[in-house]
């Protein structure tokens, strides 16, 4: 049974990746599961300088989902390289560094700096966080700007460049094309969907940032549809994500067009979720006599 996939030059032993921001810097989970078994670990979004993030409240549960407005708190690229990466290098898995900047230049610099470090196997460019300010949001919602910022990062790195798309757009296909035109080797679909919740007793928003990003099973049908649209629009491999909780959910994304899947919110519900999802994928392949997971990608019968 072949589970290995090639995500725009990033070779994974299996298609299960942990999603950025939901698995810390990876090492926090070594007591809960065997990290060597995961296809790749995507670390929390990194920026040039450490970022403090938003004030509390930062998360709120909603029906079958959760809102978060962490505000991209992170220890910064340097600290990551110095403190976390040496730990991660001990594991036989691939490391995807998720990163962002506040300007095109910052994106390029971050990409360059991460590429220089040993033990990072691919970059995932976050242009799609829903709890940043309006100006920043344009990176992930205005195709022309998307192409520009991706092109800048593209020039700054030789590593496989994955661009993470925002679902908060009229046409994910247009955004996907723009990212590919800018030089993306692969696409992550989707980041969280903008949402909010209000405490009716105090009339205050549940999140200090007012709006946040919705993740979890609630968004799965939306994410799946966006993977399907993206698959029809571009040729590069897609990492599907959004509400994947079980092996069956992962298979749904692969059938819709994903070459790999990322597990996000499910890690909170069960720290070993990614291993169970991998097991579920294998069970499905055995049951359906699928020898190579790659043959299932985009295998929807319409």
């Amino acid at each position: 049974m072949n589970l290995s996939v090639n995500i725009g030059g990033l070779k994974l032993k299996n298609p299960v990746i942990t999603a950025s921001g939901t698995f810390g810097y990876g090492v926090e989970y070594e007591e809960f599961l065997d990290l060597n078994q995961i296809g790749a670990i995507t670390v929390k979004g990194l920026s040039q300088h450490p970022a403090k993030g938003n004030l509390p409240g930062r998360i709120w549960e909603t029906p079958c989902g959760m809102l978060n407005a962490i505000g991209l708190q992170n220890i910064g690229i340097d600290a990551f390289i110095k403190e976390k990466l040496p730990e991660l290098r001990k594991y036989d898995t691939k490391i995807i560094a998720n990163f962002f900047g506040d300007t095109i230049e910052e994106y390029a610099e971050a990409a360059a700096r991460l590429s220089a470090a040993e033990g990072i196997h691919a970059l995932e460019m976050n242009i799609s966080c829903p709890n940043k300010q309006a100006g920043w949001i344009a990176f992930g919602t205005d195709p022309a700007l998307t192409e520009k910022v991706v092109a800048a990062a593209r020039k700054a790195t030789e590593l496989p460049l994955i661009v993470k798309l925002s679902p908060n757009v009229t046409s994910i296909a247009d955004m996907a094309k723009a990212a590919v035109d800018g030089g993306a080797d692969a696409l992550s679909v989707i980041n969280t969907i903008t949402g909010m919740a209000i405490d009716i007793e105090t009339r205050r928003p549940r999140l200090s940032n007012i709006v946040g990003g919705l993740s979890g099973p609630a968004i799965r049908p939306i994410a799946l549809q966006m993977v399907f649209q993206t698959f029809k629009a571009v040729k590069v491999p897609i990492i599907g994500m959004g509400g994947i909780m079980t092996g069956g959910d992962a298979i749904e994304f692969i059938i819709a067009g994903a070459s790999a899947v990322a597990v996000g919110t499910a890690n909170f519900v069960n720290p070993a979720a990614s291993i169970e999802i991998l097991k579920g994928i294998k069970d499905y392949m055995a049951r359906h006599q699928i020898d190579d997971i790659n043959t299932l990608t985009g295998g929807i019968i319409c």
Partner: protein
Amino acid sequence: MNRLFTADIVTNEQLDNRYFALQVTPNVAICETLAGQFFMLKSGEFGEYTDPLLLRPFSLASFIHPDDTYPNGLLMFLIDAVGKGTNILKRLPVGTRLNIIGPLGRGFPPVADDERLLIAAGGIGIASVLGLNKMYHGVPLFYGVRSRGQMIECTNSNIQVASDDGSIGDKGSVLALLERHISQLRQSYSGKIKIYACGPHGMYKAMFKMNLDADVYVALETPMACGVGTCLGCAVETTSGLQMVCKDGPVFNLKDIIWGG
């Protein structure tokens, strides 16, 4: 030793119309626990439905050590049924298998020999300090409840109770009892006093304002997703920046917290 395990419900006892005591026995040996630590529970065994989605955090009210009947011991939680997750837990029959993560967080710090400890609890906050009450036998316990019905039994000969409606103990705030006790204590004792408290947010704010002549440690509650420090969701503002309640807490020094709003 594992912090991710399944456990089966051994008893699920209704205490009043909201409070219930849940005892579960882990199916594997679990790590050592400290008073003030907590566990995250999935509200039910049905893996397929996802509302409620996230695990729910509950303080360990007591741990009964392994014996022949329960080779991995018994974890006891005291829970107030306030919302959807807790109301599902309340109704689960004996034998239901739960998914659990824990023990999590850092418990109450140890008490030095030259320190005097006082324990304060408000409402369901008693859950978090029951372990202390057992460990530090005979230490004064100040316990505030809404009314007699909400009071959880706890063996302590040195207990002082206050209730909102006066149906048991003093009518009014338990903090008044605590304050009175400290000032009496201060007539004969000038050393360090430590207070370990667990109760609602309002109680902590009141304690902060009272500027008690003691080192006060409180167990905080915030919404949580991961419980292990990775989601960065349970942040609390402290004088030294943001800290994570699940990992850096849930016990904090009262004066380190920025009590906004």
